[in-house]
């Protein structure tokens, strides 16, 4: 099974701090988007289970995004491609670039993370499926392959879990709980150095008629003017909370 995994390098959500103008420090640490890690890990587990196939990871971004690709190679992916751009792209433009990559190869499975920790729209997986006219299965927390190659997937949705099946090729969006991403071994890190990484310009974005553009970032207005208790001992804090709950007739 040849697998294409699309990943994104994002600012580390644990390190992100915004100032009053909606900016964050340019040297904020970057990491592979969390849900993409489940996608990469699943691809590697599929390859280990089936004993065949190649895993290609692709990212779109500035040159620094190579770090996330290197990590994926160290985990066990076979080759990587970086489409370099410093232009801001909307999700559909990202999906169009990824679709072109997918068409250039012959993939049985396209794996993406369900959403990114920066934009968080969850758009790219569905858009990729639409552009390539492939079946889409999102919110995936379990994946099995039957003897005849049918994919059986567990989706986590509002009413519980849906078990679905689909014939490849398909677009699968990975959620937490799908697996536990491995840390690269020393052997994996060494092997990654010899794996091909193709770097090429992403090219001008496609005509932008249906584009969605972002404005400046701003902090959310405090919806509720709350009472914040801090630097107090636990007993005093607890009494104060109960007092406030009493005032609101909640106790």
């Amino acid at each position: 099974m040849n697998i294409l995994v699309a990943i994104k390098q994002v600012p580390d959500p644990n390190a992100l701090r915004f100032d009053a103008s909606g900016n964050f420090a340019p040297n904020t640490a970057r990491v592979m988007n969390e849900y993409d890690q489940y996608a990469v890990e699943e691809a590697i587990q599929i390859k280990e289970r089936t004993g065949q196939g190649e895993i290609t990871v692709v990212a779109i971004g500035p040159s620094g995004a190579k770090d996330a690709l290197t990590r994926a190679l160290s985990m066990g992916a076979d080759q990587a491609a970086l489409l370099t751009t410093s232009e801001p792209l909307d999700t559909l433009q990202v999906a169009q670039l990824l679709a072109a990559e997918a068409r250039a190869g012959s993939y049985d499975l396209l794996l993406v993370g369900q959403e990114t920790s920066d934009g968080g729209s969850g758009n790219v997986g569905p858009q990729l499926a639409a552009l390539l006219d492939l079946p889409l299965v999102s919110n995936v927390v379990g994946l099995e392959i039957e003897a005849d190659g049918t994919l059986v997937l567990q989706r986590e949705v509002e009413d519980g879990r849906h078990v679905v099946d689909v014939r490849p090729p398909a677009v699968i969006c990975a959620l937490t709980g799908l697996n536990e991403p491995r840390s690269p071994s020393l052997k994996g890190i060494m092997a990654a150095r010899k794996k091909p990484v193709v770097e090429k310009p992403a090219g001008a974005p496609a005509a932008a008629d249906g584009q969605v553009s972002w404005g400046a970032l701003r902090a959310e207005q405090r919806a509720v003017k709350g009472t914040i208790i801090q630097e107090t001992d636990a007993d005093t804090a607890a009494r104060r909370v109960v007092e406030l709950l009493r005032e609101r007739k909640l106790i």
Partner: protein
Amino acid sequence: MSGVLVVIETSAGELRPASLEALAAARALADSGPLTALVLGSGIAAVASDVAARGVDRTLYVDAPVLERYTTDAYARPIEAALATLSPRVVLFGGTTAGRDLGPFLAARAGVNCLSDVTSLRWDAAALVATRPVFQGKMLTEVRYTSSSTAFAVIRAGVFAAPESAGSGTAEPLDVTLSATDLRVNLREVTTPPTGAANLADAEVVVVGGRGLGSKEAFDSLLGDLADAFDAPLGATRAVTDLGWRPHYEQIGQTGKTIKPKLYIGVGVSGAVQHLVGMQGSETVVVINRDADAPLFKLAAIGVVGDLNEIVPALAREVRAARG
């Protein structure tokens, strides 16, 4: 091209609240032309009639066994049929797992991007402008869509208030051929959580724990005690259920339950968007966390910054004393 089409999702014959909330978002878009609801599902004639009485100008429905539960191909067909018939200016989806698929999927098929996870929607001359949270809820941005082609948007769940039903109205069946053979994803099985956990949705007080509790043992003992003091059920974040500390049916958030209790108490919960979506309708929010920057504090009427290992037992004590 005019009007707003709102896709109303059902599952096993029941309306998804988030879809009804999208009706409110549609009504807030003044001067858009007629408002049409498209109800999809199986065994839904009565439900369609209920939707027809919620302030819409026209209600269409497609009732077919393959629509009992969402799969992309099955839902895409009738929606595209409605788009072809109505040529609306805007199509809205509720922010369910299905809506978050269908919005961008159908928009891409129509050659445009989708405004996803929006909390407000308005016209600014010919541009459709929306607000949406980004960076896991830490910041907001305005997004603009300026194309004259049909606009697609997915409305975040729990933000708008669903319009009430005035009883029943007239809904028209939409004729769409749905052949099971050309649906590429096949639903084999649905596992639903045990009904014992249903009291989370109705509870007046809910005590919720996050990863900050540190361990299953700490979660069970500290929060179990606090929940007991309030005589309330326990809820958990996605992080906690993924770690296996609590069962999935206690999960509150985008892929779990949505709750709107009188009192929500979040302990060791940072407030990621995934979770906020499931509890932001709570009337009073109490937050206990070691991290003063935790996004959940933005919703807090009462917040305590400190060590939850000390605060939680103290609070349980005080609550028991107060309740007598």
